[in-house]
């Protein structure tokens, strides 16, 4: 039976999970849209869609884990998964690139131009007289009112330390897996997701601080927009990554993953490093410079 699957690339025969996923997406998108348009019921349709999607993810991944543990996947299937994950992470990088691009464009082009640089003297004089280009800013219209920018030291620095050390702990866990030291693997994987969730918690503390004491909001002009959208999408990714780490942790406790075959572990580790690298970019360009 094993030789049978070793030779053949495993092609599943029919799966209803994708269609369930599409139904979930339909509910989710219609729900969010109608809710944004002011229909209260949309909120519940959205929740229903989310529930269907979570059900789909659980079922789909459950099937794949079952097949993986059953030995249906040969090395070639394993390579497909790895490459798929790599390209998925690349697409995520490009998603963040759009928002980083917006930040750079606003800081280096839009705001100096509003302040009259280059050939925009009259733009400044006639439309936004008195506005001087600076950063951080909420624009010449003082959108959202006066605010305080998030300082780079304090919480953000602690968060940087947390996330960087979680990258180290997940690497230690990886080495432990390769060396067959299961206790060390479980322990350091545990450290990693705890560090991840602490990061998310502190990020929440930071947001509360920003909203309650600094008048720094999503609506605080371009600074608030880029700050909250970049850190918000990053925080969402950390949350997803930490949930994935937790699942991997419990799979380790159940005895999953061998020294040779542990795609899911590596995929989550890659994802975690990706989230970490994005944070370094965020820390430098959003908080610091």
């Amino acid at each position, binding site marked *: 039976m094993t030789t*049978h*699957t070793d*030779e*053949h*690339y495993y*092609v*599943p*025969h*029919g*799966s*209803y*999970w*994708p*269609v369930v996923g*599409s139904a979930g*997406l*339909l509910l989710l*998108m*219609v729900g*969010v*849209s109608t809710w*944004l348009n002011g229909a209260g019921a949309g909120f519940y349709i959205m929740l229903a869609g989310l529930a269907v999607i979570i059900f789909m993810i659980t079922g789909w991944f459950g099937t794949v884990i079952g*097949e993986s543990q*059953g*030995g*249906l996947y040969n090395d070639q299937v394993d*390579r*497909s*998964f790895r*490459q*798929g994950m790599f*390209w*998925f992470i690349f*697409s995520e990088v*490009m*998603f*963040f690139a*759009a*928002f980083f*691009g*917006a930040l750079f*464009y*606003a800081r280096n082009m*839009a705001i100096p*131009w*509003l302040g009259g640089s280059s050939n925009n003297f009259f733009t400044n004089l006639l439309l936004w007289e008195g506005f001087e280009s600076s950063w951080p*800013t*909420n*624009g*010449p*219209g003082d*959108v959202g009112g006066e605010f305080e920018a998030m300082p780079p030291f304090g919480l953000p620095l602690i968060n940087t330390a947390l996330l960087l050390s979680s990258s180290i702990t997940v690497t230690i866990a990886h080495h432990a897996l390769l060396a067959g030291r299961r206790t060390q693997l479980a322990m350091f994987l545990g450290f990693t997701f705890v560090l991840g969730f602490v990061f998310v918690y502190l990020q929440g503390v930071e947001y509360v601080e920003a909203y309650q004491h600094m008048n720094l909001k*999503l*609506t605080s*002009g*371009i600074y*608030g*927009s*880029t700050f909250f*959208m970049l850190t918000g999408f990053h925080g969402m990714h950390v949350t997803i990554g930490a949930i994935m780490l937790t699942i991997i942790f419990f799979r380790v406790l159940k005895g999953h993953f061998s020294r040779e075959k542990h795609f899911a572990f590596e995929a989550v580790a890659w994802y975690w490093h990706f989230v970490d690298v994005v944070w370094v970019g965020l820390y430098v360009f959003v908080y610091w410079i």
Partner: protein
Amino acid sequence: MSSTVADALDHHDEHGPAKGIGRWLFSTNHKDIGTMYLVFSLAMFLIGGLMALVIRSELAVPGLQFVHPEVFNQMTTMHALIMVFGAVMPAFVGLANWMIPLMIGAPDMALPRMNNWSFWILPVAFGILLSTLLMPGGAPASGWTMYPPLVLQTGDAFPFLIFSVHLMGLSSIMGAINVIVTIINMRAPDMSLLKMPMFVWTWLITAYLLIAVMPVLAGAVTMLLTDQFFGTSFFLAAGGGDPVMFQHIFWFFGHPEVYIMILPAFGVVSEIIPTFSRKHLFGHDSMVYAASSIAFLSFIVWAHHMFTVGMPLTGQMFFMFATMLIAVPTGVKVFNWVATMWRGAMTFETPMLFSLAFVFLFTIGGFSGLMLAIAPADIQYHDTYFVVAHFHYVLVPGSIFAIMAGAYYWLPKWTGHMYSERLGKLHFWSSTIFVNVTFFPMHFLGLAGMPRRIPDYSTQFTDFNTIASIGAFGFGLSQLIFVWVLVSAWKGQKATDRVWEGSHGLEWTLPSPAPYHSWDTPPKARIANEAFE
């Protein structure tokens, strides 16, 4: 868990398709999914085409006769979104699904379940998009480019527009990941990268472009959504943002998108021209390098779409020269196709006719693109019908003709039946004549100063507009011949395995129709190919 595994192994030797609707809903078979993509694309092509006919009816004579200006704008917007994301892109993904595993000797796509999901997101996305036609405020009417602040005036349709674009992106990204992984990981053991057929190569590059830029579009429309509903200031000057920033982000996606729609077309004609010239493709490797160069350049030319919006002179110069540089690798491709035909024993079956028309007419579109690339000239042409003529020349007798050529070329391999050559030629000649009747006069209209995206115009533009409208109805009706070709091929003559006398490649060593599961064990690509020498 163990029962799932046992089930999977039990079913492993079951070779027929499942019964009933489940075959399509739950499919993990690249051929079935490819068929669904192609049928979906044809349906969208016809719906988008009807919208184009609404536009051309209104423009047939000056004055407002059939639709309100708002509805006219909804038609131009929806026509573009449906044709770009619903017709052209899914058609190429359908061809990729069907042909790439057959061409490289793979048992299926690398990630078959995800393949199913990539397809089944599309009906959701376009269901949502089409439903906006019935909403208060109507469908989106800002143009498919969704520029703020205009797009923010969309009615209830606005969030539906944004989320349907998200879904289209999701589908494209998953489809592209599948294509790349299939090509890199699933080739027959002795098929090196530079031995791959041209169609596979162009799709590899296209898939890379898709993964690189679809997320950027997702980011751009997300910013629109938050600007509209959550008070962000990305595109609001008062808050320090800039509406022009949207255009930059959008076209960073949009220009590679143009090549996403044409590179697989290059691949298709690079398969067909050698077959009917009974020669190998001239300069295979240089074609690969040319396609890669085009892909690279596509990332650094985006602002040529916005020469008139206000940009530093150095920016204009850079984007102008970088854009003109694209003519070099594109020229390499055109000359290679011509060199492939040189002294070939050519015959002119329908796929070859469409491919030849592609080479001629796409080149016209390329030349008008070169004219538009020149910044000082573009300031005159911008937002005129000249631009409409340009991109319809590269998309209709470009992408669409290549899709048609591919459909005729591979239909016998898919169905096991030959189409009617007589009907195919009729479809070709009527399409080719009418496509030129439709779009060629638009060059003159544009140069004479007629702006695009208007429901009414000054009377001196009447003659050419009337001609274009006649052409549009002729082209639309010609596509019904294609539908009839497909239906009548059901009873067509049986196809041989090789189908075409001069064809090369692994797919032609399989029976026609290709069995439901092919290449369960990887073929020896070189031996199979030498059988045709």
